Structures are given as C-alpha cells and as structure tokens.
C-alpha cells in the first residue's frame, strides 16, 4: 500500500483500494510500551490491524550531549559517548578517541590498534546479541534471549577485566588504551572464543529455519536499497537492503585493512534480512577477533602523546615534570590544534560519526554526533505502512533503535 493516504477528517481517510471513506483508529504505541525498548512514541493510525501511518515522537530521553560536549574537556567526553549507544559503548569510546587522534595527527602503535579491534568487535557482538535476541523476544521466543545473554555476560566480564566496568565502560584513552589486557582478560577472551560459536549456532538453530519465525519476518518491514540510501541508512540495516557499505572496509580505521572478513548483505532489507545479516556479522566479528589475536603485535599499548596521554603514575608521584603534565592534562590546559575533523567508525548500528570543531580551547567548540539511529529511524513510518501491528513491533526491534543514541 504505497499510495498516499488521503485524510478527510478528524478520523477518516480514503481507502486507497476501494476509494471509499473509512474511519481509522489511532493507537498510541509508547512511550512505555514494551515493544519500544528504549523510549519513543509512535502514534499509529490503524485500520483494524493494519497500520496506515505512524507519527513518531522522539526526544524522551534527550540529554543534550552536544551541548555538554561543548563544556567538557576532551577526555571527559568519553563518558558521554559511553551513554550514547549503550549496547556497544566501547565502539563509541574508540570512535571518539580516534577522532581526537585524527585532530592531533597522532600515530597509534599497532598493538593498541589491534587491542581496540578486539574490543570493538566484542562489543559489536554484544550489540548484535541484544538486537537479534530481542527480535526473538518480540516474536514471543524468550528463551533464545536468555541463552545468548549468558555469553553477553561473559563479554561484560571481559570488559570489566580490561577497564573496570561492564556496560558504560569508559574504555581506552586518547592515544591508546589505559592499560594492557591482563592475563585473566586474555583467558576470558579465549574462553569466549571457544564457547560462544556453539551457543550462537544453537540460537540460530532455534529460530532461523523455524517456519513460524520465517513467516513472521520475511517480507515484513522491508526497504529497498535505494530508499535506504535516501533515508541515510547505514550499517547492518543498509547491508540488509543489499548495499555492502561498511566503514571498516570503505574507510579503514584502526588497522581494519589488515583483517580479512566478509561483508554480509541481504536482499530486500526486511526483518529476516536484518536478522541474518546481524547473525552473520557476529561470525565475521569472531573471525576478526581470532585474526587479531593471532596477529597481535608486540609493542606499546598507547601512543606517545605527552600532551594528552596521562604520564605513568610512578612518574607523577616523584617527577615534577610529569606532575605538571598530569595537572595540565587533567585541567585541560593543553594546546589543541585548531581545525575541524570528521571521523566515522562502524558502530553497532552503522556509521557513527564525530564531527569535531576545535578552536584550540580545552573543550570542543562544536561536537556533532552522526547518530545512525537518529537518521534511519525517521524511515520507520515509511517502512511499516501497510503492515500489521505485529510487523510494526518487529520492525522496530529489528532496526535496533537505541534510544540513547537516537535522542542524544
């Protein structure tokens, strides 16, 4: 039902099929509806169970990231990025760090980059776990969610071992990592690499070829590649529509060019495509991690950036010079190059861009986040038109709209 729907009154419209005037009902999906996992509202216009139109309202957790970023020194913005796409906060952290490094024109040691790759791919897996299992939950199959979440818990443990927090990690520093991986962390990563594939396969067996699930998802919430591009889709959702745009391949960052991996694509961008693309991406991520572990170079885990990277603690404790640098970094009194730079990473949901304008002060002059969710969620009404209520719910969860990223 792609024809434009003509509204003729308070709650009347002209049925595009029969050409008769009909009454529609409005249904308020959200903001506290269980399907809107984050918080946004959709006022659906429904003809029975069929969705005629949707009017999304967002901004229910608008937290003014861009404004805060103008008032915080560079290193404190890491904690902000944590809370954007909280399903995969390390990617955001590192995206931000790489943006600043690009501004500083800093050279990062290979080892730090490989460590970053491992962390980023782990968090991509954790992001996709959430999305895919939540599609399961929304179709009514709760169990797969609980199976995979145990392994997400293991990813949490790895992060906790590396940085000290589970979800909002504040991981890494401008210039590298704040510390190298510990022995336990490596052990846990290996454990994850050994055990997770089985569990992922089990989850896939549980749903992917189940006809109920396939019937539910195939042909539901589809979008063509051209439309997807026009609406600014990126990431798995764009790839599901058949366009293999991946920032990791197109504009490699953090040594992604060293790794060999496939870019899974779908055909017509429906829920099943998204589900399968995300599922396959987890496998690709696993392979990237394995390659990174195998090829892990020796070396330093951070760049030599005395203006930004905190000096080692033992020097701070007894050397005056280091102490002064320490103070200057924490107070944010170092000189920053003037300029503007855009850096994008492949976040869990697509191209996560940071547009940074620096005027040389301790804070960014302007920091704009290109939040993939925000941009592609506006296509939601377009996508669900003509589908049923259940399709609308599934489409929402398969698009993996993270409210924190959406509302900034």
């Amino acid at each position, binding site marked *: 039902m792609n024809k434009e729907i003509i509204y003729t009154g308070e709650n*009347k419209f002209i*049925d595009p099929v*029969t050409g*008769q*005037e*009909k*009454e529609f009902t409005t249904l308020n999906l959200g903001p506290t509806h269980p399907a809107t996992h984050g918080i946004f509202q959709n006022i659906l216009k429904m003809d029975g169970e069929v969705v005629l139109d949707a009017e999304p309202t967002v901004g229910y957790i608008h937290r003014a990231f861009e404004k805060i970023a103008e008032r915080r020194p560079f290193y404190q913005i890491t904690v902000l990025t944590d809370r954007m796409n909280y399903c995969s906060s390390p990617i955001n952290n590192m995206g931000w760090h790489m943006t600043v490094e690009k501004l500083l024109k800093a050279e990062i040691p290979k080892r730090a980059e490989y460590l970053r790759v491992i962390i980023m791919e782990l968090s991509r897996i954790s992001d996709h776990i959430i999305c895919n299992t939540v599609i399961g939950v929304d179709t009514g199959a709760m169990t797969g969610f609980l199976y995979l979440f145990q392994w997400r818990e293991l990813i949490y443990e790895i992060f906790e071992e590396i940085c000290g927090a589970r979800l909002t990690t504040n991981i890494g520093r401008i210039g590298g990592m704040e510390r190298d991986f510990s022995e336990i962390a490596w052990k846990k990563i290996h454990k994850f690499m050994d055990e997770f594939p089985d569990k992922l396969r089990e989850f896939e067996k549980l749903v992917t070829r189940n006809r109920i699930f396939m019937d539910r998802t195939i042909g539901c919430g589809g979008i063509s590649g051209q439309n997807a591009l026009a609406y600014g889709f990126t990431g798995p959702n764009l790839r599901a529509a058949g366009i293999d745009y991946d920032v990791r391949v197109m504009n490699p960052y953090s040594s992604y060019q060293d790794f060999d991996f496939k870019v899974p694509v779908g055909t017509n961008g429906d829920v099943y495509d998204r589900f399968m693309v995300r599922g396959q991406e987890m496998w690709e991520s696993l392979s990237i991690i394995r390659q990174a572990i195998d090829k892990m170079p020796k070396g330093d885990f951070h760049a030599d950036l005395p203006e930004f990277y905190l000096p080692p603690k033992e020097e701070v404790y007894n050397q005056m010079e280091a102490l002064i640098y320490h103070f200057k970094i924490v107070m944010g009194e170092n000189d920053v190059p003037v300029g503007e730079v855009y850096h994008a990473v492949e976040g869990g949901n697509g191209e996560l861009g940071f547009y940074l304008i620096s005027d040389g002060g301790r804070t960014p002059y302007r920091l704009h986040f290109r939040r993939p969710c925000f941009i592609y969620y506006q296509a939601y009404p377009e996508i669900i038109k003509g589908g049923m209520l259940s399709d609308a719910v599934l489409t929402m969860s398969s698009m993996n709209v993270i409210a924190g990223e959406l509302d900034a």
Partner: protein
Amino acid sequence: MNYFLSNLTLLNITVPVQWYLYLSAALFCIGVAGALTRRNAIILFMSVELMLNAVNLLMVAFSNHLGDASGQVFVFFVMVVAAAEVAVGLAILMMIYRNTGSVDVGFLKKLKW
C-alpha cells in the same frame, strides 16, 4: 449444577405445551417490536434471530408434545439457515459499514450510493 441439569432428564415431566405457546408468542412479538423500532441494522438482525428462536422453541415444544422428532429436526434446519443468514448478513453489513460508515437502516433507503 451439572447434577441438576442431568437429573432433569430423570424427571421426564414436561410443561403443558400451551405455556410454550404463550412464551414463544411473547418472544416473537418482542422480536417483531425490535425489528420495527430499532434502526441499527445489527439490532434488527438480532431481533430476527429472536423471532427465529421463538419459533424454534415452539417447534421443540410441539415435537415433544407429539412425540415426533421431526420438530427437532426442523429446529436443526432453522439453525443452519440462521447461521448462513448471519454469515451473509453480517458480511453485507460490514460492506455497508465500510462504504457508508454507518449501519443505520434509514441510511439504506437509497439502495444506491
């Protein structure tokens, strides 16, 4: 409750058929009144159902009275017809509603829209 219902069989004593005559006459007239007074097509339909049921009741009563199963068989047929009628009738009603946005029978006097 169930015991009570099942043991009514055992009593096997019936009420004079005349009473049923009155009762079904009353029900029938209520149906007629409903069909005449209400303009909501669905209520109208239901009044017709009520009338049919009044007849059903009478038929069972007579069947019982005469000891002939034919009456009950006829009730059976009435039910079939009623079900078919309801299916078609409601479908028509839905179409009418879809096209006019109302089920008021007054609206239908045009026969063409």
